[in-house]
Every structure is written in C-alpha cells, then in structure tokens.
C-alpha cells in the first residue's frame, strides 16, 4: 500500500471536487497552482499527524469544503477579458454585414478592425480558454475570406 496520502481515494475525491470548483474561476494557471499547493498541504498535514489512527480522515475533516474554492473569489480580469474578446469575434461579421449595406470597402475594414481588436484582447487573455478561443476564431474569420478570395478570385 502506498504511503502517499494523495493515493488515498478519499483524498483523490476531495482534490477532484476542488479542481471542479476551481475550473469555474476560469484561470487555469492559478487553478493548477492552487491544486499543487493543496496537495503539498495535505501531505504536510498528514505527516504532522503521523501515528494517528486515521490521519487522512482527521486532515480531510479539517479541510474546507471544495465548494469554498468556488465562492466569491475575485474573477480574474483575464477571464472576463477572454469572454469579451470571444464575443467581439462574433460581433465582427455582424458589424461587417451591416456596414456592407453601405457598400464599398467599409464592410471589410470594419470587420477586420473588430477582429484585430478581438484577437489582441484574446492574446492579452491567452491564459483563459475564452481568450484562446477568441484568438483562433478571430484569425479563422479573417483568413477564411482571404483564402476563399485566393481560391475563387472575384471576376
């Protein structure tokens, strides 16, 4: 049997629940660091109770509930920025279509400006899933029409 308390299924369940709560905070790097800190904490706390009948149960009883990690912890600005960046990539085609009604190159310029801003915001929030999604979708939305224009040149 392993001496590492992290191999205990009760500890694994607790860590899984904390990981799930942290995922809702949106900052993956901070969530990973928090989990690593908690793993070390559990090992340290169990080691401090060496000789107890069920040190792991004692430690788990003292730990905060996993839901505490999903409480009202501040939402990272990056997480919110990533979300807005993704929304901006969706707004690009809408604004482009509306500007297209006016004719000329206004539609394309408006579309490109919005997508560029969205990708820049996505890069600033690249640690968040929505930030990375904004980078990919913004680039794809700009490159797709360029690719189509290259393959099927307008007459």
């Amino acid at each position: 049997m392993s001496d590492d308390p992290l191999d205990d299924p009760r500890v694994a369940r607790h860590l899984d629940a904390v990981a799930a709560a942290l995922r809702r905070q949106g900052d993956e790097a901070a969530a990973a660091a928090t989990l690593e800190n908690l793993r070390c904490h559990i090992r340290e706390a169990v080691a401090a109770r060496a000789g107890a009948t069920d040190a792991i149960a004692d430690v788990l009883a003292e730990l905060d509930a996993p839901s505490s990690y999903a409480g009202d912890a501040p939402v990272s600005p990056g997480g919110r920025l990533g979300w807005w960046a993704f929304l901006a990539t969706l707004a690009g085609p809408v604004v482009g279509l509306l500007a297209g009604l006016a004719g000329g190159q206004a539609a394309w310029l408006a579309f490109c400006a919005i997508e560029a801003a969205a990708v820049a915001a996505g890069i600033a929030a690249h640690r968040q899933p929505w930030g990375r999604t904004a980078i990919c979708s913004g680039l794809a939305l700009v490159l797709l029409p360029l690719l189509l224009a290259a393959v099927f040149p307008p007459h």
Partner: protein
Amino acid sequence: MSDDSWSIQLRKGLVELGVLAVLRDGETYGYDIVSRLRRVDGMALTESTVYPVLARLEVGGCVQVRSAPSPSGPPRRYFRLTRAGNERLASLTAQWRQVSAGIAGLLAGGQA
C-alpha cells in the same frame, strides 16, 4: 449585509496583504503560511482562502516558487517575494495604512 458577511468580505480583502506580509519575513512554504495566518486574531484564514491568492500571486509574478525536500517529511513548495511582490506589498501597505487611519479618525469622531 449581516455582520458575518461583512467580516468575511473584510478578511477576504486582506488575505493578499496578509500573505505578502508573511513572506516579507523570508522564504517559507504553504502549510506554514496558512498556519501563521490562521493564528492571526480576527483573520481566521484557511487554505481555501490562502492558496488561491498565493496562486494568483505566483501567476502574477509577485512570488517565486521552488520545490525542495523537507527535512522531516514530504517535499514542500517554498515561496519568496520577488521584486514585484515587494512593490505590491509596499503599495498595499500604504493603502491599508491610509484607509485604516481614515476609518480610525472617523470612529474617533471630529472628522468629516
């Protein structure tokens, strides 16, 4: 807002300052940081409050982390303040002193 809710919000707002203040005394590990903050009168901080803040400080470059074996148990993650962390501590300390002095003045009366 109930007294409990106000107290929780106040403590949460002070976690970062507390963590930075503990690290000002020198490099230490997470379990020790939580233990020391838990003993501070009126703070009663626990791991679910301290570790997310410590992680954000790490991601933000305010603390540097290294893993090392402990002399008497499992490996530890040791934290120490970076230059950015020291600057952050100085900034938060100045803000805390300004606000606490202002509130103290209000509570003492005679100030608008």
